[in-house]
Structures are given as structure tokens and as C-alpha cells.
């Protein structure tokens, strides 16, 4: 089966890096992978996104119009990509910055207060890692160990960052596991 995910947010939220980590981890696992940044009109003006495909067969189209998963780090991203997610797919919502509920009822919606949880684990700039952890936990691919391995290598030059980011990553996975993922805004909706 092919796993494809669109990761979207403000420039500066680290969405490109999230995608790269997924792609690297997938490759480690022996999967075929592709990572495609958006470099279109959104380039300026703050939004950014990338598409990652993980597959056992050679990757066909690296562009995915209807992804199986969405990782939305801010509201414009949710607005833009939510309608495109395939039925039965996954939508991870950064509920720290997105106060509206997800409108789809045919996908699995996971609310993660990524920024809040990042602050909680003492890594305020690690919201992307929290969200990534949540996605990896929900999707199951790439394997958790591979993701941790790649995160470790990515920050290898600054050892303190490795632990901080691993903590954020794990906090995201934990949040999924414990179900403590719904943000207040959504709970109230």
C-alpha cells in the first residue's frame, strides 16, 4: 500500500523538515519514497507545504491530488487541503493554532495541541516534532524506531536538541495514545 501525506503550515513551522524526516525514515525501512516541496505561488506570503509518498512499489506520481493523510499545522492549510483528503484517510490538526473543528466525517481526525504540548515538554519550537510524532503513531508507517533514528541523526550535531526533539516527538505519540488530543476549542464545538 502507498502512504502519502501532505504536511502544511506557515513557513517557519518546519513543515519541510517534517516531510524530510518521514522520507528518510521510509527509505531506511526499505520503502520507495518521494518528497516534493510546494514551490508554487504559496512560496511567499508565509505558507508552505510538502508531499511525502512512501510505497512498497516504485513511486508513481510524486504529486498527490487526493492524499491519504494531511498534517495541518495552521488554519489556511486545513482550509485548503481538508476537502482533498481521501475518504478513510487521516487528518492531524494542530489544535493549538486551529480553533475550528474539522468538517469531514469520513476521515480519522486527530487533534493535537502541538504548540502547547511542545511548550509542556520544554521545547517551545518543537511543535512540528509533536505533530510528527502524532502522525507517525497514527499512520504506523514509517516504523517508529526509524523515525526516532532519523530525528537523532538530523540533530546529531547539537546533542541537547536531540533529546528535546525526541521528547516532543514522543509527547505527540503519547497524546494520540492517551486520546488526550482534543483541543478545548473543538471539545466545545
Amino acid at each position, binding site marked *: 500500500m502507498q502512504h502519502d501525506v501532505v504536511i502544511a503550515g*506557515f513557513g517557519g513551522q518546519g513543515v519541510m523538515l517534517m516531510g524530510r524526516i518521514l522520507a528518510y525514515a521510509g527509505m531506511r525501512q526499505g520503502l520507495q519514497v518521494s518528497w516534493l516541496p510546494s514551490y508554487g505561488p504559496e512560496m511567499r*506570503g*508565509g505558507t508552505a507545504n510538502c508531499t511525502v509518498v512512501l510505497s512498497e512499489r516504485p513511486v508513481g506520481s510524486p504529486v498527490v491530488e487526493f492524499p491519504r493523510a494531511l498534517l495541518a499545522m*495552521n488554519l489556511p492549510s486545513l482550509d485548503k487541503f481538508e476537502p482533498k483528503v481521501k475518504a478513510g484517510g487521516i487528518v492531524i490538526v494542530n489544535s493549538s493554532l486551529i480553533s475550528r473543528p474539522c468538517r469531514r466525517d469520513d476521515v480519522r481526525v486527530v487533534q493535537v495541541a502541538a504548540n502547547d504540548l511542545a511548550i509542556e515538554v520544554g521545547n517551545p519550537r518543537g511543535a512540528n516534532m509533536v505533530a510528527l510524532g502524532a502522525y507517525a503513531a497514527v499512520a504506523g508507517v514509517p516504523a517508529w524506531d526509524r523515525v526516532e533514528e532519523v530525528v537523532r541523526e538530523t540533530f546529531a550535531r547539537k546533542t541537547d536538541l536531540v533529546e528535546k526533539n525526541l521528547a516532543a516527538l514522543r509527547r505527540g505519540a503519547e497524546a494520540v495514545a492517551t486520546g488526550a488530543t482534543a483541543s478545548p476549542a473543538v471539545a466545545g464545538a
Partner: protein
Amino acid sequence: MSQIVIDPEACKGCGLCVQACPQGVLTQGRDLNSKGYFYAQVTAQMRCIGCRLCCITCPDVAIRMRIHGTFYRYFQY
């Protein structure tokens, strides 16, 4: 009397006006606008001398200045 108005949606939070104001009238805010910028805010309107340096500096024409009554221009612009 001068009045400074910053349009929160037009502001990109660059901080140049804050630096330009000789009177410390403006501060970089802590609120995000819809584009994700911490926009500048007028926090000490009282001290404003109407010099327009903030307006002149703002790259996004996010600042307007109104006056009430006679206006003393510090310089030709």
C-alpha cells in the same frame, strides 16, 4: 493633536516603526494577525509628537496618521 493608527492586518511585525519612533509610542505586539505576524501596536499615543517617522518608515503603509486641529510639521516630506 496627532493620532496614529496601525492596521493589524496590513502590519507584518517588522519592527521598523518601533525603532523609528523617537518617542517610544509603538511596541511590537504579542498578538498574531491572520497571516501569522505579531503586529505593532500603539501603546503610548499620548507621547506622540506627530513627526510621521513611523509612517515614513513602514514598508507596508500599515500606519496612518490623523490630526486634530493645527499640525506642526517638523520637516518637509
